[in-house]
């Protein structure tokens, strides 16, 4: 369960990215976050795993009270949230499989389980043959798929994805979406910021539209909107 209560976010340079956002996302929901560039989607998402801290308001994610969290508890909260970053954030010194495995090493999973899960995930995103490569040897879309694999490998109870298909062709985008839907079917909450009108309109899930830091629309089975 994710809940935000009147959340404001003002960055250090004075930009107010979010202004009084309140939202409730139940466990197991699938939510699209849409909106124009610079509207505050990434900020909205970054608050959920505490990459950014709200200036005001309360945030709860899967039983954790985000602002009250002590520094040493943060990593344990983050292990319940799989994140796909807009800029991938892969570890450049690790190979593809090591990057994915890293998320499991962090929770001290056994070597055998790690190997098995990593292999599964790389198969799902279609990167088995690139397992030994380093991120800077991959195409943009391949890097994005590594990020997806890393976010899912731990079977987190929440997945937040910031434009996870921005660098992918429609085919691959669909594949990732189907992967998300499968994971979602098993009860995982999914919050996905996206610009992909095709995906949103074709799947009809809950859509939260953010504009200028505020929730402009929140529809069950909504569409992308912004048609001209």
């Amino acid at each position: 369960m994710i809940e935000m209560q009147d959340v404001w976010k003002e960055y250090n340079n004075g930009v107010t990215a979010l202004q009084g956002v309140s939202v409730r996302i139940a466990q197991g929901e699938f939510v699209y976050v849409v909106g124009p560039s610079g509207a505050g989607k990434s900020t909205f998402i970054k608050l959920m795993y505490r990459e950014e801290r709200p200036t005001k308001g309360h945030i709860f994610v899967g039983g954790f009270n985000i602002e009250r969290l002590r520094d040493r508890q943060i990593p344990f909260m983050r292990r319940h949230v799989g994140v796909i970053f807009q800029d991938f954030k892969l570890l450049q010194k690790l190979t593809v499989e090591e990057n994915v495995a890293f998320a499991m090493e962090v929770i001290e999973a056994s070597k055998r389980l790690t190997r098995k899960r990593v292999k599964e995930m790389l198969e799902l995103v279609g990167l088995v043959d690139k397992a030994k490569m380093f991120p800077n040897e991959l195409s943009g879309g391949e890097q994005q798929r590594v990020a997806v694999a890393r976010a899912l490998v731990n079977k987190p109870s929440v997945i937040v994805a910031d434009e996870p298909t921005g660098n992918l062709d429609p085919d691959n985008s669909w594949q990732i979406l189907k992967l998300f839907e499968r994971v979602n079917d098993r009860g995982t909450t999914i919050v996905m910021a996206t610009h992909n009108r095709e995906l949103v309109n074709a799947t009809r899930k809950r859509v939260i539209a953010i504009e200028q830091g505020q929730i402009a629309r929140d529809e069950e089975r909504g569409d992308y909107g912004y048609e001209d």
Partner: protein
Amino acid sequence: MPETRNAGITAMKIRTYGRHGKEGFKNLFRNGWMTFAAVSGVAVTLLILGVSLIISVNLQNILTNIESELQFNAYVMDQVPTSQLPAIKHEISSLGGIKQVTLITKEQALSTMKKTLGPNADLLNGLGNPLPNEFVVKADSPKTIPQLASLVSKIKGIQKVQYGASFIPRMLSIFTIVRDTSVIFIIALVIMGMFLISNTIKITIFTRRREIEIMKLVGATDGFIRGPFFVEGTLLGLIGAFIPSVILNQGYYFIQKNVVLFPPFALMPDPIVMNRVLPILYAVGLLIGAWGGIMSMRRYLRV
């Protein structure tokens, strides 16, 4: 989900320590020339430190040697019979801070004087012996010489005490200055060396701040991230100390064997010097390598 999740902090598994060791070791190679730059920076700094330490240790030793040779003379009154000389010697010896008392009889003194005069020595013939019996007194510390001399001069039977009055204080002030300077210099050098090394490591870690941030965002605890850095820093410090220690050991051994110097200026034997110098090098290298690395990455952990 229950609130009890907040208590989810657990001790690290043993297996994970193994991983840290392996990763730390791997990182050393993955960071390629950066590791090389850091190790060589540490090595060069410690080499400078080591050479200075060796010089300082030897300097201290030479000063101690010279000091121990400082002495004064006490002349015995002419009327004191030879049989009483041992008693006086004993009296002098029993003063605190005396290292050695040597009797030079008037006969010994005369023959020394004759040697000094050389061919003119004949001139002393038929004169009898005009010279007095004397004691050569060595003190534990040269600083106490003026004081001891005045005590000795008051002993019954001693006519006069003589020492290089102008020479000793002058020597002493120089000794004190050299010694204090070299200690200050070494301490300053150790601090600067630590600064230089931690500086190098700080910059090295700066290049990896993104890496650290990403790990944090993926759910790694501070300890988990620090582990490999700690191993890497330790290895880095170890290698960085090992290189100069080998150079210094071999180099000093060679110099000490081949450069023949005379007693007060002699170089101290290899093992004694190295036993004092090498631990300092390893301590500085390891401490700054491991601990400094951990410290300078701390700011990037605040994610």
